[in-house]
């Protein structure tokens, strides 16, 4: 930080967006797979 202003920080931005997108994607895919399996076993 310089003079109260944050300099740079794109690596943190990519980390936050990457983590969020990956979490939604992985959870969504896992959920659909779980539901298909549950349907098969019903």
């Amino acid at each position, binding site marked *: 930080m310089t003079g109260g202003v*944050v300099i*740079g920080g794109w690596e943190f931005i990519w980390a936050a967006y990457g983590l969020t997108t990956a*979490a939604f994607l992985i959870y969504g895919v896992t959920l659909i797979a779980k539901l298909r399996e549950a349907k098969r076993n019903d």
Partner: protein
Amino acid sequence: MFEMPKVSTSKTPYVFLALGAALFLFGSYWGLFVAPPAADMREVQRIMYVHVPTAWNWMLAVLFSFGCAVAFLFNNDSKWDARLEGGLEVGTLFAFLLCCQGAIWAKPTWGVWWDWDPRLTSTAVLLFAFLGILALRNFVEDPVKRAIWSAVATIIAAVDLPIVYMSVKWWNSLHQEQSTPQTVASPFHLPLRTNAFAVLFLMIGFIMLRSRVAAYRLRRELAAPPVRIGEEAGELV
């Protein structure tokens, strides 16, 4: 004893997921490449476009879980238990994401990954409370006991939600006050609102699908043949 829950096969949750994904792509593109940087936090402020929508919708997921728990205790209907399981799991995922995004935001702005600040601490308490309730649901085999115990535990845990919301007003918090259209400059409104609706639609889709998984599990448990006396001890073998 529960009635056998019915499981919907409508495509509505997939529509919510598709709409949420499309809005999330648009909102994130706008937030990353089109919206101007903030005056003091500069580029790092772009994390707000994923962090704040996650926070708003996490609170909605907790409220939804609380509503399902109350509805179950009043109606004793298994559909509310299945919905509660959906709300609990999605609420836990969002709370985990919220804490991670917050830590990523905190490092370049506060200089630390974590601080025992009232907002962060109360959020972490609710995350661990939901994790505990999910663990409880996995350990208890009797579906009626499981539903009652987890509904009561959810109501107790949800008491923390107003504390999370008000923590930045009640105490001298390192965390900034709530982000609303009144506290955020107008060029930031579009990506923030777009991602807020995107995460809302994703959350609805996730909860609907997860509730179906929970309903199928209940159906399996309720359809299982009753154990005959002596069978467990091997007398009939």
